């Protein structure tokens, strides 16, 4: 009995004290291909992760990727479960009230995806799926108030329900939808429609790296490293691994 108790106590101690040895812990998402997806072995891979690793290498720090659901990603940062968010998070005024951002590391517009042949005029009264708590939710609520919105925890779930026909269209980042959905087998018969949206009020200034407000040094270090990997060609190498053109944006 004593032995079991000791063993249990020790297990608890190890679990509780499993603080990581890495310099920085980075929150990533894992359900937003091709930026971030979960591989067969459970690890997270994608553009965001490659960028994160390149930035860490540039800063000379060791980093650990922490898979976190989108819903809880800002609270996780605030509660110090991680030190930075690299999860294709757009830099918006609303979010800036809570956390701080580095400069952008890419910027691409939002677009609708639906069955081939759909147009924006058909949307009224239809159902559109967006990821909960994204710029796309705010955009849809502001610009398409007569469309029924369905809120999902992750973009992967939006695709599943789009294919299943539970929603008529998806509104999300154009590149994410192109490579994460349209260029896959499941995307057959679906395509972009409507305009390319990049309205500062909703869409902000591109995707940046989120840090806690107090960590201004870390924020600046990330910004510097982003321009470093832009000039060193590292960014281009990663970019071309996933996309046919430069997604950094103007």
């Amino acid at each position, binding site marked *: 009995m004593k032995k079991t108790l000791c063993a249990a106590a020790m297990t608890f101690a190890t679990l509780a004290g499993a*603080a990581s040895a890495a310099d920085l812990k980075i929150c990533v998402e894992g359900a937003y291909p091709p930026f971030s997806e979960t591989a067969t072995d459970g690890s997270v891979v994608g553009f965001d992760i490659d960028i994160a690793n390149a930035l860490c290498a540039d800063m000379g720090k060791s980093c650990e990727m922490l*898979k976190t659901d989108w819903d809880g990603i800002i609270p996780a940062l605030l509660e*110090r479960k991680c030190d930075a968010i690299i999860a294709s998070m757009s830099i918006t005024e609303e979010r800036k009230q809570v956390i701080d951002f580095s400069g952008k590391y890419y910027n691409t517009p939002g677009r609708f995806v639906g069955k081939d042949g759909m147009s924006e005029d058909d949307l009224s009264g239809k159902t559109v799926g967006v990821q909960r708590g994204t710029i796309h939710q705010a955009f849809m609520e502001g610009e398409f108030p007569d469309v029924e919105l369905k809120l999902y925890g992750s973009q992967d779930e939006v695709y599943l329900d789009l294919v299943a026909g539970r929603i008529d269209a998806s509104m999300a980042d154009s590149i994410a939808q192109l490579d994460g959905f349209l260029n896959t087998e499941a995307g057959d018969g679906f395509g972009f429609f409507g305009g390319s949206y990049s309205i500062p009020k909703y869409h902000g200034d591109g995707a940046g790296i989120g840090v806690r407000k107090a960590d201004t040094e870390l924020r600046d270090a990330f910004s510097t490293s982003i321009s470093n990997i832009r000039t060193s060609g590292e960014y281009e190498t990663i970019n071309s691994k996933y996309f046919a053109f430069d997604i950094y944006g103007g």
Partner: protein
Amino acid sequence: MADLISYMPLLMRGMVTTILLAILGLALATVFGGLGAAGKLSGGRIAKRVVWLYTSIVRGIPDIVMLLLLYFGGQRLINDIGGMLGWDYVELSKFLSGVLTIGFIYGAYLTETFRGAYLTIPRGQVEAAQALGLRPFTTLIKVSIPQLVRFALPGYANVWQVLVKSTAVVSIIGLQDLVGLANDAGKTVRQPFVFFSFVLLAYLCITFVSTTLFDWLERRTALKTHES
């Protein structure tokens, strides 16, 4: 099907996490339940109030909400207390949050189980032990607890069966347990049906094995009567 097989090592790892979560959760629940029952049976007015509050809170809140509260709120609490005491950052991991939540919830149910079982022990036995000159502690260890195990076992088995199913919700804070991994994998290869069917079967297996085990334990600890 081929996809399921290629993901099998990962799923098996998830199953280990799920089982570990359930067993550690049960261990913690047993501690909470024991304390709760002791408080209710022999504690003072304040102890009784505390136990009452504890069981009421648990009965009122769904497991999934409790988990989310503990995972986010618990971390804030640790940070605040840690800040005051000058600790370094202490991480409340997903796994630990799961164990704590499950232990906390099912401890309240076990409080009732243990209390009920204790009250089933005939009073005369404790009095007899005292009359024989046994000290209260010896009485507890040699007389009360062995019978407590016998009387509490059916209720304990029931709590375990419900607890095992509760582990599934821990996947929603992103724990890589059986459900979480099957969810991710099923969505990645776009075959959720196959993966979730597998999860259902896996849970049925756990249920079946543990029912068999508890039945055997119950038979072993049962009172020998003329019928058996």
